[in-house]
């Protein structure tokens, strides 16, 4: 017999998805072109705010090649109803949104009409012929302007422009602030970003001949959830719509929501009985999908003279744009709940308000809530250190939740599971040679460069939480996953899961988990089928918040264990040993000195010919998993930067990331997730910003102006792993998809403050070269 196969979990096996993706043989929505397809194009509003008096589609309909032009009233006649918001909060002003604008437009890019035509070229030509009669209204372009009592109201029936409000924590003891040795009062702001997946949104819906059923291929992170929400808005039973996720080119949270365009594509395919295809272009993605992150903090911190933080209180104003998307004010809520970060703070009170503005709606983006909170608290920690004349790591050390305090219930009600925060900090300090920094600063000075070093620590709730807890929070979905494993007569396994993959390598990691339990080769004996609302097991929320590795991974492990138990029973009969003595390894069942190929056991089970007494035929097992709690990956990053004073250009000369995501299923994939998240974090710190002018016209409608980082702008990321297995998750896995994105912006901000001395602008993202140049002048007392 050949040498034993290594365990699959923990090995960087090549991704099973890569051969097709790298050869350009991936199957994305846009790759499918059924004959007779109608191409959808959305006519989008040209102004930020106005009454929509009339929409005249006559000239557009008259254009040859145009099949239909529809407005919201036309959709209602077909049976469509408004789209439900997925996560609703108490007293939220609106819980559903119109599929197309009816009497008012509230942001540039809001969809007003849909054109169906024989080609996208004709559809866009027709779109130009749709005549819009608009009466402009004053545009509200910032959250702070929106809460001005005199501000124009976006929704005339509301008392103000506040969509919803949520308070995290309890009433912070005012006495703590009055009596504290140290108090800080600071404002922070984060700019608008766009998640910017490489593939924009996309949907292709095909009516099934001979039935009223519709099959839709949608670029979504959550096939089952999409099928439920879309069917409801179409006025259909869920069973009428099958949603399949083919290969998806990135999601980053944008594609966890269902959008009106998805609904309309399915609705019209069902109505007209022809395939309808909608492929979002880049401009549409930047103006018409969702933006994210933009918020303003106003926070007070109370600490004792040793730097122990006693209390935090403050306000968070979140810029929601014109209406809520899938998660409502969820990101504001999570940000408020996570303001305490990895620190033990007894008293926290954060009032989060989501306010509407005349900008593109805000949606989910990688790690939402986490980066917003981390930027504020990690700047505050450094400002506290400065006030106390202590090193920034010392203040962190004094406030960290300690290893013996887990599970730790934060003041805002989160229960952190496990870890050693100080160990991550120490490793980051050691790897970055933090102690030797002053010498490097002096060397840089000789070259006329300003050098700084900064750190940020973080903890990130990951994998959502128990379904019952989510019900209490107001979401429309729970958090369970079901995985089915089916064996074929040759002893290979097919793993079925309702989650999808947007490039994370989910096929690979699920195969790895099952391979070890079943003693199979993950690359040759396991295939994984994902993301089909009717043909794969139910997934409550799809591929979001690191759920796949944590929740689907646990369900896969449990299903594989049940399948293994059955194989052990059959093998025990074959070899005349106790089932518990049977080990599955190297595609064999082994006991004592004997072995039977798993393929032989599978054949026995599937044919039912040679089964031991009491063993039923069939070889297919399902398991469902709902976690008792989420997981809490954490870490510390250190950024060392050099600033060229003439241009304000920042070069990140070293970037160290220490991360603990528990057990690593596939280290190469984990590192890819961390590097990608850190790259996005750096983009948000230095480059990316969705900008609007004072009339609410978006100024960054292409990737020439919305500056995503490229390989040239991202330094080598030096990664170190700690491993504290999640104590409550089968397999010990914690999330990793989001954890990398929290620390880059505050670490770079703290490095800037270290290089230049403290300047107010370091509290306001992003740090573009002109901003840094102004900071240098402010630090020097110029200007």
């Amino acid at each position: 017999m050949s040498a034993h196969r290594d365990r699959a979990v923990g090995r960087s096996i090549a991704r099973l998805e890569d051969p097709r993706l790298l050869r350009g043989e991936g199957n994305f929505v846009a790759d499918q072109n059924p004959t007779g397809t109608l191409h959808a194009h959305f006519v989008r509003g040209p102004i930020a705010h106005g009454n929509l008096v009339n929409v005249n589609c006559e000239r557009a309909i008259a254009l040859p090649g145009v099949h239909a032009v529809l407005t919201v009233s036309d959709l209602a006649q077909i049976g469509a109803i408004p789209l439900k918001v997925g996560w609703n909060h108490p007293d939220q002003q609106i819980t559903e949104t119109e599929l197309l604008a009816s009497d008012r437009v509230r942001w540039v890019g809001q969809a007003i009409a849909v054109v169906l035509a024989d080609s996208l070229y004709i559809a866009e030509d027709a779109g130009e012929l749709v005549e819009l009669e608009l009466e402009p209204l004053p545009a509200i372009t910032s959250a702070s302007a929106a809460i001005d009592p005199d501000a124009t109201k976006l929704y005339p029936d509301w008392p103000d422009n506040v969509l919803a409000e949520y308070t995290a924590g309890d009433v912070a003891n005012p006495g703590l602030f009055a009596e504290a040795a140290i108090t800080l009062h600071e404002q922070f702001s984060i700019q608008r970003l766009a998640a910017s997946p490489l593939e924009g949104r996309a949907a292709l819906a095909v009516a099934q001949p001979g039935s009223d059923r519709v099959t839709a291929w949608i670029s979504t992170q959550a096939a089952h959830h999409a099928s439920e929400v879309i069917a409801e808005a179409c006025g259909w039973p869920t069973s009428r719509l099958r949603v399949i996720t083919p290969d998806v080119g990135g999601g980053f949270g944008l594609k966890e929501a269902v959008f009106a365009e998805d609904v309309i594509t399915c609705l019209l395919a069902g109505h007209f009985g022809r395939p309808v295809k909608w492929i979002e272009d880049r401009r549409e993605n930047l103006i018409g999908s969702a933006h994210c992150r933009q918020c303003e903090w106003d926070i007070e911190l109370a600490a004792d003279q040793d730097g122990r933080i006693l209390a935090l209180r403050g306000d968070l104003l979140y810029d929601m744009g014109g209406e809520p998307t899938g998660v409502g004010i969820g990101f504001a809520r999570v940000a408020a709940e996570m303001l305490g970060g990895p620190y033990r703070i007894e008293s926290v009170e954060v009032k989060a308000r989501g306010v509407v503005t005349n900008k593109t709606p805000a949606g989910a983006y990688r790690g939402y809530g986490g980066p917003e909170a981390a930027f504020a608290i990690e700047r505050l920690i450094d400002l506290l250190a400065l006030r106390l004349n202590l090193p920034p790591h010392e203040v962190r050390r004094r406030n960290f939740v300690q290893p013996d305090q887990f599970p730790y219930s934060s003041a805002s009600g989160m229960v952190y599971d496990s870890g050693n925060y100080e160990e991550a900090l120490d490793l980051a300090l050691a790897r970055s040679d933090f102690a030797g920094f002053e010498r490097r600063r002096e060397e840089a000075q000789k070259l006329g460069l300003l050098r700084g070093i900064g750190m940020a620590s973080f903890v990130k709730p990951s994998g959502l939480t128990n379904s019952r807890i989510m019900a209490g929070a107001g979401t429309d979905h729970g958090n369970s996953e079901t995985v089915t494993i089916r064996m074929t007569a040759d002893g290979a396994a097919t793993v079925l899961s309702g989650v999808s993959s947007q490039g994370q390598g989910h096929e690979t990691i699920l195969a790895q988990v099952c391979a070890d339990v079943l003693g199979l080769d993950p690359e040759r004996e396991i295939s994984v089928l994902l993301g089909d609302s009717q043909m794969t097991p139910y997934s409550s929320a799809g591929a979001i918040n690191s759920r796949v590795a944590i929740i689907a991974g646990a369900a896969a492990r449990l299903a594989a264990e049940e399948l293994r138990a059955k194989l052990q029973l059959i093998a025990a009969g074959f070899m005349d040993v106790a089932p518990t003595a049977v080990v599955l390894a190297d595609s064999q069942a082994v006991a004592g000195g004997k072995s039977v190929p798993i393929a032989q056991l599978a054949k026995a089970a599937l044919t039912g010919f040679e089964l031991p007494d009491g063993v039923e035929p069939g070889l297919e097992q399902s398991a469902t998993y709902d976690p008792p709690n989420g997981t809490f990956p954490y870490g510390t990053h250190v950024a060392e930067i050099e600033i060229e004073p003439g241009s304000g250009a920042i070069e990140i000369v070293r970037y160290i990331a220490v991360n603990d995501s528990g057990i690593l299923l596939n280290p190469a994939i984990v590192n890819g997730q961390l590097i990608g998240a850190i790259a996005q974090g750096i983009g948000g710190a230095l480059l990316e910003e969705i900008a609007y002018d004072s009339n609410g016209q978006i100024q960054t409608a292409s990737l020439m102006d919305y500056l995503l980082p490229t390989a040239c702008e991202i330094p080598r990321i030096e990664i170190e792993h700690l491993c504290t297995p999640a104590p409550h998750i089968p397999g010990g896995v914690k999330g990793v998809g989001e954890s990398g994105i929290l620390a880059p912006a505050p670490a770079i901000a703290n490095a800037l403050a270290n290089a230049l001395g403290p300047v107010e602008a370091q509290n306001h993202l992003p740090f573009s070269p002109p901003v840094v140049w102004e900071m240098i002048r402010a630090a020097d007392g110029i200007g």
Partner: protein
Amino acid sequence: MKPAPFDYVRATHPDQALELLATAGDESKLLAGGQSLIPMLNFRLARPAVLIDIGRLGELSYINRQDGTLRIGATTRQAQLERSKLASAGWPLLARAIGWLAHPQIRSVGTVGGSVAHADPAAELPVACSVLEARMTVASRSGKREISADDFFVTHLTSAIEADEMLLEIAIPAAPDGAGQSFVEYSRRHGDFALGGAAVVIPLDAQGRCAGVRITLMTAAPVPWRARTAEKLLEGELPGAQQLAAAAKAAASEISPTSDIHGGSSYRKALAQTLCFQALTEAAAMATPPDVTRVGK
């Protein structure tokens, strides 16, 4: 992002392209590498009735040297010029400039003439043409004419090429013996349009003093900006740090760059001074008096 309808003709000879231009005139647009035009079409910012494709006219793709002058055919790909030994032997500034131009994929398709004719003051080749005092040959059905760089760039995205004319060639005169050449710029990301930049040629006289310095600033004005006051300031001076700094200051003081979301005017002005000083310093370090050069040969 699909273009509005247009007719498409691929010209098989420059004369045919001129015929088509004469007929369609204002309604038409020449397509060469398409690296600026195609996005404009897709955004429907440009809506020509006829697109005349000259991108494959081999007659207009060449780099040669005649009587010391470098002649570049209009449809020569930017990457070909970047790699041309003939060009880098006498005009090292060109390859430096093209190195900043977008990305290799774009330079492989984008043409030299296309970028020059597009007349974007934030683009590298118009700035290089300005500082190297290139002369552009344009033709219409009725004949050819030559236009100096100063006259060629009229304003933002507008050149002196008439609607029925086509750019045929860019001629770059020999740089003075021993002149130092430099091109520097700064952009938000590698390959983006510059926030600022400077191209410099510093010839020296036999005594090592500046003689006929040329300075062009990028993104400083609606056209590539020749900083003539600063050039004069250096005339007859030794190119020491102090003199160069004064010149850079003078150059930046003449401009009032436009603010946009990527940088305000005062920032761009200060950046221009920094980059101008850097370019002057680099060029001065490379410059040698003419007789020394001859000895070197």
